[in-house]
């Protein structure tokens, strides 16, 4: 193993490869910041270019683009409340409020350090556990995935404080309902399309997230412009761009990062689970583990709330390489694109790769890691300048947010209907936000909806319609018991707190 790591390092650390990874990180960050263009698109766009290089350099370029795009996605989540990819939705829950409090630079720095730490720790886990974890990942069955989705939904508890539980649940149901629009994945029967061809493929994630987050945020700012209770604080540019993380905040991150990296990595290893579920689960878990006073800050700019999903989504990114490299199963869309690129280079990932070509295996792992290091070195000095986006006057910023949102959906669908639908959803979301209906549960449910239905379908078909699958397998039972314990704990604490 040590030999493999050293070969991987020597390949990744040549002058040419370091230069390539820097270029990759830079372009990845820019592409990731653009709405609708996530890591998957960024890597796909780079594939033709990588074929001009040798396999190692090509993979290193993709690694740089990958992490750059993930960081770019977090940047737009934090600064504009516009998460372009599902994996960075949870980042906006606390990142955006923090930026609104004049701590945009700090929020970006916390995100950058957490991502780096998450990636580093997961690379270490990968070194020691990759071969054995690939076997564990295959033992997950549909009932376990279904139970995992339910566990993921417990993250909504974070938005159900102050008696808002029913509102959060209504938003969960609405998110699941939106996810059910379009063709049924197995039978291809259209549902809730009302004979409109534009709805046949369902509603895209970018459309829903841009409408409920970025666009409705922009409309709310305009709507509340003269509201004395919502008067925006004037923050100085120095404050906005400061990346200094104080001792107390570092202390919080030291606790959050290790546990979030473990959960992120483990979820990332499961094929199909990926960074989104990892980030939501880490966010929910973190809220359950912190003290009561910190818990109150969740959703309002908590350091733990920002650090947890950022650590977990990066750890999951590295974790998703386990099934891809050791089994040849792409665990996510991004790894599927990378698998295609690997095959294009004539590299066949699978169980034999780790045994017969350890140098290729470790080159990929090391290049991913070096991509992250370079990203941190490149982007930290740029944070004060990136954060100044928020200093753009509202008269300009609001139309620009609307423009980015509409462009994000236009480049994906090229039809007017999606733009109207997005405006419609944004108007409804703006109205709901006025009455404190939380949007994150809607997005969480929308993202998990398809997977949830798919796994419930398989479980019910396999058990011939019986719900016994929920307790038939020990793993399913363990996950469901954890979910029940979390819910009961929340109810107990709410009741106990009210009485006391």
């Amino acid at each position, binding site marked *: 193993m040590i030999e493999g790591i050293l070969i991987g390092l020597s390949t990744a650390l040549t002058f040419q490869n370091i230069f390539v990874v820097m270029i990759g990180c830079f372009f990845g960050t820019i592409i990731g910041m653009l709405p609708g263009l996530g890591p998957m698109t960024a890597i796909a766009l780079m594939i033709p270019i990588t074929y001009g290089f040798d396999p190692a350099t090509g993979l290193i370029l993709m690694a740089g683009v990958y992490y750059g795009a993930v960081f770019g996605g977090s940047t737009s989540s934090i600064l504009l409340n516009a998460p372009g990819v599902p994996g960075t939705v949870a980042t906006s829950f606390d990142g955006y409020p923090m930026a609104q409090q004049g701590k945009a630079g700090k929020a970006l720095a916390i995100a950058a350090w957490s991502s780096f730490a998450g990636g580093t720790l997961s690379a270490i886990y990968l070194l020691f556990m990759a071969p054995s974890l690939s076997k564990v990942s295959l033992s997950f069955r549909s009932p376990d995935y279904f139970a995992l989705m339910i566990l993921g939904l417990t993250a909504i508890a974070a938005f159900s404080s102050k008696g808002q539980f029913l509102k959060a649940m209504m938003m969960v*149901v609405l998110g699941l309902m939106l996810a059910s629009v379009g063709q*049924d994945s197995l*039978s291809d029967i259209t*549902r809730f399309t009302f004979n409109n061809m534009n709805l046949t493929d369902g509603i895209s994630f970018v459309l829903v997230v841009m409408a409920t987050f970025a666009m409705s945020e922009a409309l709310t700012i*305009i709507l509340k412009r003269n509201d004395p*209770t919502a008067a925006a604080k004037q923050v100085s540019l120095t404050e906005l761009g400061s990346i200094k993380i104080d001792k107390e905040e570092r202390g919080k991150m030291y606790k959050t990062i290790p546990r979030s990296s473990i959960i992120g990595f483990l979820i990332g290893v499961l094929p199909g689970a990926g960074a989104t579920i990892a980030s939501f689960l880490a966010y929910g878990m973190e809220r359950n583990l912190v003290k009561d006073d910190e818990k109150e800050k969740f959703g309002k700019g908590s350091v733990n709330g920002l650090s947890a999903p950022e650590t977990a989504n990066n750890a999951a990114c590295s974790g998703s390489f386990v099934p891809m490299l050791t089994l040849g199963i792409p665990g996510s869309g991004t790894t599927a694109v990378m698998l295609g690129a690997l095959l294009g280079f004539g590299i066949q990932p699978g169980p034999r790769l780790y045994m017969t070509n350890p140098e290729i295996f470790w080159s990929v792992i090391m290049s991913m890691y070096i991509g992250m290091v370079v990203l941190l070195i490149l982007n930290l000095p740029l944070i004060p300048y990136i954060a100044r986006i928020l200093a753009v006057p509202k*008269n300009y910023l609001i139309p620009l947010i609307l423009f980015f949102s509409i462009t994000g959906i236009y480049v994906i669908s090229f039809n007017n209907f999606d733009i109207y639908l997005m405006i419609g959803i944004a*108007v409804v979301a703006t109205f709901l936000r*006025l009455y404190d209906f939380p949007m994150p549960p809607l997005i969480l449910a929308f993202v998990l909806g398809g997977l949830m239905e798919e796994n419930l*379908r398989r479980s019910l078909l396999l058990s011939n319609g019986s719900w016994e699958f929920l307790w038939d397998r020990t793993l399913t039972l363990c996950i469901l018991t954890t979910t029940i314990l979390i819910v009961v704990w929340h109810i107990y604490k709410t009741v106990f707190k009210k009485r006391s």
Partner: protein
Amino acid sequence: MNINTTKIISLLFFIFSAFYLYTAYQIQVFAFDENAPFNARTFPIYLGYTGLFFSGLKLILPDPDTIKVEHKNLEYKKTGILIIIAIIYGATILKIGYFLTTSLFLFTSYYFLGERRWVLMFLLSFPFVAAFMYLLHGVLDIYLRDPFLKSIGVMG
């Protein structure tokens, strides 16, 4: 029972869930799938009932934290104008093209939000969109339909 806007929203959601449930029952499934443990309408039916359950609970349970929105302080006019501009933008983007409609959308939005610095408004609309379009179309090779630019021979 105190009637407030949150209750009205819950009532609307209750009606929406009932409609969703009705539509879910209307989903046509294949004959051989009709009595299967899970078919295309199973999950939506569960969702419909869940929606009825939670919105029903919200309707009947007391609402201790009533949210009061001061409508007189809200800028409905400007928000409405911005939404109308966005709808017009959506309606014309395919016919006229990305460059002109996007630039005009930005320019008019700045204007209606109260901006009067004409040079800055111009710079942050036409040249800005041109640069952005070059990044998407020219550098990243993402297709952007633009009949207007095509008609004047700028885009191939």
